[in-house]
Protein backbone atom coordinates (compact mmCIF):
# COMPACT_ATOMS: atom_id res chain seq x y z
CA UNK A 1 0.00 0.00 0.00
CA UNK A 2 2.71 2.45 1.06
CA UNK A 3 4.61 1.65 -2.11
CA UNK A 4 1.66 2.70 -4.24
CA UNK A 5 1.28 5.89 -2.25
CA UNK A 6 4.97 6.68 -2.72
CA UNK A 7 4.82 5.92 -6.40
CA UNK A 8 1.72 8.09 -6.74
CA UNK A 9 3.42 10.86 -4.79
CA UNK A 10 6.49 10.66 -7.00
CA UNK A 11 4.32 10.72 -10.11
CA UNK A 12 2.52 13.81 -8.82
CA UNK A 13 5.80 15.48 -7.89
CA UNK A 14 7.31 14.88 -11.34
CA UNK A 15 4.16 16.08 -13.14
CA UNK A 16 3.89 19.26 -11.05
CA UNK A 17 7.63 19.97 -11.34
CA UNK A 18 7.54 19.45 -15.10
CA UNK A 19 4.51 21.68 -15.53
CA UNK A 20 6.32 24.24 -13.43
CA UNK A 21 9.42 24.06 -15.65
CA UNK A 22 7.33 24.39 -18.80
CA UNK A 23 5.48 27.43 -17.55
CA UNK A 24 8.73 29.04 -16.37
CA UNK A 25 10.25 28.37 -19.76
CA UNK A 26 7.60 30.64 -21.26
CA UNK A 27 8.13 33.36 -18.69
CA UNK A 28 11.94 33.33 -18.83
CA UNK A 29 13.52 36.64 -19.84
CA UNK A 30 15.69 36.90 -22.92
CA UNK A 31 19.34 37.91 -22.45
CA UNK A 32 18.42 41.28 -23.97
CA UNK A 33 15.81 41.75 -21.26
CA UNK A 34 18.41 40.91 -18.63
CA UNK A 35 20.67 43.60 -20.09
CA UNK A 36 17.83 46.10 -19.83
CA UNK A 37 17.08 44.99 -16.27
CA UNK A 38 20.70 45.33 -15.12
CA UNK A 39 21.05 48.72 -16.78
CA UNK A 40 17.87 50.04 -15.23
CA UNK A 41 18.90 48.79 -11.78
CA UNK A 42 22.25 50.52 -12.17
CA UNK A 43 20.70 53.68 -13.50
CA UNK A 44 18.28 54.01 -10.60
CA UNK A 45 21.12 53.13 -8.24
CA UNK A 46 23.14 56.00 -9.66
CA UNK A 47 20.20 58.38 -9.40
CA UNK A 48 19.77 57.54 -5.73
CA UNK A 49 23.41 58.40 -5.13
CA UNK A 50 23.16 61.79 -6.82
Amino acid at each position, binding site marked *: *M*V*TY*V*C*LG*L*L*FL*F*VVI*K*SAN*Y*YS*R*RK*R*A*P*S*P*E*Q*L*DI*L*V*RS*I*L*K*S*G*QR*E*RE
Partner: protein
Amino acid sequence: MNKKLPVNLSPFIKTRYAYKKLKICRSCNHFTVLGDKQCMICGKKALISIDRKAASMLRRSMWKARLIAMLILLIGLVLSQSPMLLGLCAAGGIVLIAVLWIVQRKSAPAEQLMLLEKLFHKEANKLAAGLTADRDAAIAVFQSGNKPLTYEMLREVGALVQTDQLRLEQILLLQSFVLRKDMDLMLKPLLLDHFNPDLADYIGELSKIRRDLIKEDAFRYVLMYEGQILQMEHGESILIGVAGAAIRMKRYITLYPYLIIRYAHKLPKERFLRLYRMVQSSPHRNWEQLADEVERIYNEKYKWDEDFQTSHNPNN
Protein backbone atom coordinates in the same frame (compact mmCIF):
# COMPACT_ATOMS: atom_id res chain seq x y z
CA MET B 1 45.51 73.04 -23.80
CA ASN B 2 47.41 70.36 -21.89
CA LYS B 3 49.92 68.25 -23.67
CA LYS B 4 48.43 64.97 -24.79
CA LEU B 5 49.72 61.74 -23.39
CA PRO B 6 50.97 58.93 -25.62
CA VAL B 7 49.41 55.77 -24.21
CA ASN B 8 48.77 52.13 -24.94
CA LEU B 9 45.27 50.91 -24.28
CA SER B 10 44.44 47.26 -24.00
CA PRO B 11 41.61 46.19 -26.27
CA PHE B 12 38.08 46.15 -24.95
CA ILE B 13 36.74 42.64 -24.71
CA LYS B 14 33.20 42.76 -25.93
CA THR B 15 30.65 40.30 -24.68
CA ARG B 16 27.53 39.45 -26.60
CA TYR B 17 25.40 40.77 -23.76
CA ALA B 18 26.60 43.52 -21.45
CA TYR B 19 25.47 41.76 -18.27
CA LYS B 20 27.92 38.96 -19.02
CA LYS B 21 30.67 41.39 -18.02
CA LEU B 22 29.54 41.01 -14.44
CA LYS B 23 31.43 38.96 -11.93
CA ILE B 24 30.26 38.03 -8.50
CA CYS B 25 32.09 37.01 -5.35
CA ARG B 26 31.21 33.50 -4.25
CA SER B 27 31.90 34.40 -0.69
CA CYS B 28 30.24 37.80 -0.15
CA ASN B 29 28.06 38.25 -3.25
CA HIS B 30 29.88 41.45 -4.23
CA PHE B 31 29.29 42.40 -7.88
CA THR B 32 32.05 43.85 -10.02
CA VAL B 33 33.16 44.28 -13.61
CA LEU B 34 36.79 44.75 -12.63
CA GLY B 35 39.30 42.40 -11.16
CA ASP B 36 40.19 38.92 -12.17
CA LYS B 37 39.85 36.61 -9.19
CA GLN B 38 40.30 38.62 -6.03
CA CYS B 39 37.29 40.27 -4.47
CA MET B 40 37.75 43.96 -3.59
CA ILE B 41 35.55 43.69 -0.52
CA CYS B 42 36.43 40.45 1.26
CA GLY B 43 39.84 39.93 -0.30
CA LYS B 44 39.17 36.28 -1.12
CA LYS B 45 40.00 34.85 -4.52
CA ALA B 46 36.37 34.01 -5.08
CA LEU B 47 35.27 36.04 -8.10
CA ILE B 48 33.41 34.06 -10.72
CA SER B 49 31.64 35.11 -13.88
CA ILE B 50 27.93 35.72 -13.60
CA ASP B 51 27.35 32.82 -15.99
CA ARG B 52 29.22 30.45 -13.73
CA LYS B 53 27.23 31.72 -10.77
CA ALA B 54 24.01 31.11 -12.69
CA ALA B 55 25.14 27.62 -13.68
CA SER B 56 25.93 26.73 -10.09
CA MET B 57 22.59 28.09 -8.85
CA LEU B 58 20.91 26.07 -11.55
CA ARG B 59 22.72 22.88 -10.59
CA ARG B 60 21.74 23.37 -7.00
CA SER B 61 18.05 23.97 -7.71
CA MET B 62 17.86 21.02 -10.08
CA TRP B 63 19.60 18.67 -7.71
CA LYS B 64 17.21 19.72 -4.98
CA ALA B 65 14.26 18.53 -7.07
CA ARG B 66 16.04 15.32 -8.02
CA LEU B 67 16.94 14.57 -4.41
CA ILE B 68 13.34 15.04 -3.29
CA ALA B 69 12.22 12.62 -6.02
CA MET B 70 14.90 10.11 -5.01
CA LEU B 71 13.92 10.39 -1.37
CA ILE B 72 10.28 9.59 -2.17
CA LEU B 73 11.45 6.65 -4.24
CA LEU B 74 13.72 5.45 -1.46
CA ILE B 75 10.89 5.51 1.09
CA GLY B 76 8.75 3.53 -1.33
CA LEU B 77 11.51 0.97 -1.82
CA VAL B 78 12.23 0.55 1.88
CA LEU B 79 8.60 0.15 2.77
CA SER B 80 7.60 -2.20 -0.04
CA GLN B 81 6.20 -5.46 1.33
CA SER B 82 7.01 -7.88 -1.47
CA PRO B 83 9.74 -8.36 -4.09
CA MET B 84 7.12 -7.77 -6.77
CA LEU B 85 6.21 -4.38 -5.28
CA LEU B 86 9.89 -3.59 -4.86
CA GLY B 87 10.48 -4.24 -8.54
CA LEU B 88 7.46 -2.22 -9.57
CA CYS B 89 8.45 0.68 -7.38
CA ALA B 90 12.04 0.64 -8.62
CA ALA B 91 11.05 0.49 -12.28
CA GLY B 92 8.33 3.14 -11.99
CA GLY B 93 10.53 5.38 -9.87
CA ILE B 94 13.46 5.21 -12.25
CA VAL B 95 11.24 6.06 -15.22
CA LEU B 96 9.72 9.02 -13.39
CA ILE B 97 13.09 10.36 -12.26
CA ALA B 98 14.39 9.98 -15.80
CA VAL B 99 11.45 12.01 -17.07
CA LEU B 100 12.19 14.70 -14.51
CA TRP B 101 15.85 14.72 -15.56
CA ILE B 102 15.00 15.13 -19.23
CA VAL B 103 12.54 17.96 -18.56
CA GLN B 104 15.17 19.66 -16.44
CA ARG B 105 17.80 19.39 -19.16
CA LYS B 106 15.44 20.89 -21.69
CA SER B 107 14.52 23.74 -19.37
CA ALA B 108 18.07 24.49 -18.28
CA PRO B 109 18.79 27.54 -20.52
CA ALA B 110 15.50 29.26 -19.67
CA GLU B 111 15.81 28.30 -16.03
CA GLN B 112 19.29 29.83 -15.87
CA LEU B 113 17.95 33.15 -17.19
CA MET B 114 15.10 33.03 -14.68
CA LEU B 115 17.54 32.48 -11.84
CA LEU B 116 19.69 35.39 -13.00
CA GLU B 117 16.65 37.65 -13.18
CA LYS B 118 15.74 36.63 -9.65
CA LEU B 119 19.29 37.21 -8.47
CA PHE B 120 19.44 40.70 -10.00
CA HIS B 121 16.12 41.65 -8.43
CA LYS B 122 17.06 40.24 -5.06
CA GLU B 123 20.54 41.75 -5.02
CA ALA B 124 19.70 45.02 -6.82
CA ASN B 125 21.23 47.11 -4.06
CA LYS B 126 24.41 45.05 -4.00
CA LEU B 127 24.61 45.24 -7.77
CA ALA B 128 24.38 49.03 -7.75
CA ALA B 129 26.80 49.27 -4.84
CA GLY B 130 29.26 46.97 -6.60
CA LEU B 131 29.41 49.05 -9.74
CA THR B 132 29.66 52.24 -7.68
CA ALA B 133 32.65 50.70 -5.89
CA ASP B 134 34.15 49.90 -9.30
CA ARG B 135 33.81 53.50 -10.38
CA ASP B 136 35.31 54.71 -7.11
CA ALA B 137 38.21 52.33 -7.65
CA ALA B 138 38.74 53.88 -11.08
CA ILE B 139 38.75 57.38 -9.58
CA ALA B 140 41.31 56.24 -7.00
CA VAL B 141 43.51 54.99 -9.84
CA PHE B 142 43.06 58.35 -11.55
CA GLN B 143 44.21 60.13 -8.42
CA SER B 144 47.27 57.90 -8.31
CA GLY B 145 48.07 59.22 -11.79
CA ASN B 146 47.43 56.23 -14.03
CA LYS B 147 45.15 57.73 -16.65
CA PRO B 148 45.12 54.88 -19.19
CA LEU B 149 44.18 52.35 -16.55
CA THR B 150 41.48 54.71 -15.27
CA TYR B 151 40.04 54.89 -18.76
CA GLU B 152 40.13 51.12 -19.15
CA MET B 153 38.33 50.69 -15.84
CA LEU B 154 35.71 53.31 -16.63
CA ARG B 155 35.18 51.70 -20.01
CA GLU B 156 34.32 48.42 -18.28
CA VAL B 157 31.95 50.13 -15.87
CA GLY B 158 30.47 52.17 -18.72
CA ALA B 159 29.46 48.99 -20.54
CA LEU B 160 26.76 48.64 -17.91
CA VAL B 161 26.36 51.98 -16.19
CA GLN B 162 25.19 54.36 -18.87
CA THR B 163 25.21 57.76 -17.25
CA ASP B 164 26.33 61.02 -18.80
CA GLN B 165 28.80 61.56 -16.02
CA LEU B 166 30.60 58.31 -16.76
CA ARG B 167 30.57 59.04 -20.49
CA LEU B 168 31.99 62.48 -19.87
CA GLU B 169 34.78 61.12 -17.70
CA GLN B 170 35.74 58.72 -20.46
CA ILE B 171 35.63 61.43 -23.11
CA LEU B 172 37.82 63.74 -21.02
CA LEU B 173 40.35 60.97 -20.48
CA LEU B 174 40.38 60.06 -24.16
CA GLN B 175 40.89 63.71 -25.01
CA SER B 176 43.98 63.73 -22.82
CA PHE B 177 45.54 60.89 -24.85
CA VAL B 178 47.27 60.92 -28.21
CA LEU B 179 44.76 58.85 -30.15
CA ARG B 180 45.97 56.42 -32.77
CA LYS B 181 44.38 54.42 -35.50
CA ASP B 182 45.31 51.08 -33.92
CA MET B 183 43.64 51.86 -30.60
CA ASP B 184 40.46 50.10 -29.59
CA LEU B 185 38.29 53.22 -29.54
CA MET B 186 34.53 53.62 -29.41
CA LEU B 187 32.05 56.36 -30.02
CA LYS B 188 28.47 55.15 -29.86
CA PRO B 189 28.42 54.34 -26.13
CA LEU B 190 29.89 57.77 -25.39
CA LEU B 191 27.36 59.91 -27.24
CA LEU B 192 25.61 62.32 -24.88
CA ASP B 193 22.14 63.74 -25.25
CA HIS B 194 23.37 67.30 -24.91
CA PHE B 195 26.06 69.38 -26.51
CA ASN B 196 29.55 68.95 -25.15
CA PRO B 197 32.64 70.53 -26.72
CA ASP B 198 34.96 67.71 -25.59
CA LEU B 199 32.74 65.16 -27.25
CA ALA B 200 32.67 67.29 -30.39
CA ASP B 201 36.47 67.47 -30.29
CA TYR B 202 36.66 63.71 -29.87
CA ILE B 203 34.36 63.16 -32.85
CA GLY B 204 36.56 65.55 -34.82
CA GLU B 205 39.61 63.48 -33.96
CA LEU B 206 37.90 60.23 -34.84
CA SER B 207 36.99 61.72 -38.21
CA LYS B 208 40.72 61.83 -38.90
CA ILE B 209 41.81 58.45 -37.60
CA ARG B 210 38.75 56.18 -37.34
CA ARG B 211 36.11 57.29 -39.80
CA ASP B 212 34.48 53.89 -39.52
CA LEU B 213 33.36 54.76 -35.97
CA ILE B 214 31.31 57.71 -37.17
CA LYS B 215 27.88 56.32 -37.86
CA GLU B 216 24.29 57.51 -37.98
CA ASP B 217 24.06 58.52 -34.30
CA ALA B 218 27.24 60.52 -34.55
CA PHE B 219 26.10 62.29 -37.72
CA ARG B 220 22.80 63.06 -36.04
CA TYR B 221 24.61 64.41 -32.99
CA VAL B 222 26.81 66.65 -35.08
CA LEU B 223 23.90 67.94 -37.15
CA MET B 224 21.85 68.61 -34.04
CA TYR B 225 24.58 70.77 -32.48
CA GLU B 226 26.15 72.12 -35.65
CA GLY B 227 25.61 75.73 -34.54
CA GLN B 228 27.35 75.20 -31.23
CA ILE B 229 30.19 73.28 -32.83
CA LEU B 230 30.76 76.11 -35.29
CA GLN B 231 31.21 78.45 -32.36
CA MET B 232 34.10 76.33 -31.06
CA GLU B 233 37.67 77.27 -31.80
CA HIS B 234 38.25 74.42 -34.25
CA GLY B 235 34.57 73.82 -34.78
CA GLU B 236 34.62 74.14 -38.51
CA SER B 237 37.44 71.63 -38.93
CA ILE B 238 35.44 69.15 -36.84
CA LEU B 239 32.48 69.55 -39.20
CA ILE B 240 34.71 69.28 -42.25
CA GLY B 241 36.13 66.07 -40.81
CA VAL B 242 32.68 64.66 -40.15
CA ALA B 243 31.49 65.64 -43.62
CA GLY B 244 34.58 63.86 -44.92
CA ALA B 245 33.61 60.78 -42.91
CA ALA B 246 30.14 60.84 -44.47
CA ILE B 247 31.77 60.32 -47.85
CA ARG B 248 32.84 56.90 -46.69
CA MET B 249 29.57 55.34 -47.81
CA LYS B 250 26.92 56.08 -50.40
CA ARG B 251 24.35 55.46 -47.73
CA TYR B 252 25.63 58.37 -45.64
CA ILE B 253 25.83 60.61 -48.69
CA THR B 254 22.17 59.89 -49.35
CA LEU B 255 21.25 60.45 -45.70
CA TYR B 256 23.23 63.62 -45.06
CA PRO B 257 23.67 65.44 -48.38
CA TYR B 258 23.31 68.92 -46.87
CA LEU B 259 26.06 68.32 -44.34
CA ILE B 260 28.34 67.45 -47.23
CA ILE B 261 27.13 70.32 -49.40
CA ARG B 262 27.87 72.80 -46.62
CA TYR B 263 31.47 71.68 -46.15
CA ALA B 264 32.40 70.21 -49.52
CA HIS B 265 34.37 73.27 -50.58
CA LYS B 266 36.68 72.91 -47.57
CA LEU B 267 37.24 69.17 -47.81
CA PRO B 268 40.84 68.05 -48.24
CA LYS B 269 41.62 67.14 -51.81
CA GLU B 270 41.72 63.39 -51.15
CA ARG B 271 38.22 63.46 -49.61
CA PHE B 272 36.82 65.70 -52.31
CA LEU B 273 38.30 63.43 -54.96
CA ARG B 274 36.48 60.51 -53.39
CA LEU B 275 33.23 62.49 -53.28
CA TYR B 276 33.72 63.55 -56.88
CA ARG B 277 34.21 59.96 -58.01
CA MET B 278 31.28 58.66 -56.00
CA VAL B 279 28.98 61.29 -57.45
CA GLN B 280 30.30 60.57 -60.95
CA SER B 281 29.79 56.85 -60.58
CA SER B 282 26.24 57.13 -59.26
CA PRO B 283 24.31 59.31 -61.71
CA HIS B 284 21.14 57.35 -61.01
CA ARG B 285 20.96 58.48 -57.38
CA ASN B 286 19.01 61.58 -56.45
CA TRP B 287 21.95 63.70 -55.53
CA GLU B 288 21.22 66.64 -57.84
CA GLN B 289 21.97 69.46 -55.44
CA LEU B 290 25.07 67.71 -54.21
CA ALA B 291 26.16 66.92 -57.75
CA ASP B 292 25.76 70.59 -58.68
CA GLU B 293 27.88 71.69 -55.75
CA VAL B 294 30.53 69.09 -56.50
CA GLU B 295 30.59 70.20 -60.12
CA ARG B 296 30.94 73.82 -59.05
CA ILE B 297 33.85 73.08 -56.72
CA TYR B 298 35.46 70.87 -59.32
CA ASN B 299 35.31 73.67 -61.88
CA GLU B 300 36.60 76.18 -59.41
CA LYS B 301 39.48 74.26 -57.85
CA TYR B 302 40.30 71.00 -59.54
CA LYS B 303 39.50 71.36 -63.21
CA TRP B 304 43.13 71.10 -64.22
CA ASP B 305 44.13 68.65 -61.52
CA GLU B 306 45.61 65.47 -62.93
CA ASP B 307 44.26 63.25 -60.16
CA PHE B 308 40.74 64.13 -61.20
CA GLN B 309 41.31 63.04 -64.78
CA THR B 310 42.44 59.48 -64.13
CA SER B 311 39.74 57.14 -63.01
CA HIS B 312 40.23 54.30 -60.63
CA ASN B 313 38.13 52.71 -58.01
CA PRO B 314 37.97 54.68 -54.80
CA ASN B 315 38.18 52.89 -51.55
CA ASN B 316 38.04 53.86 -47.88
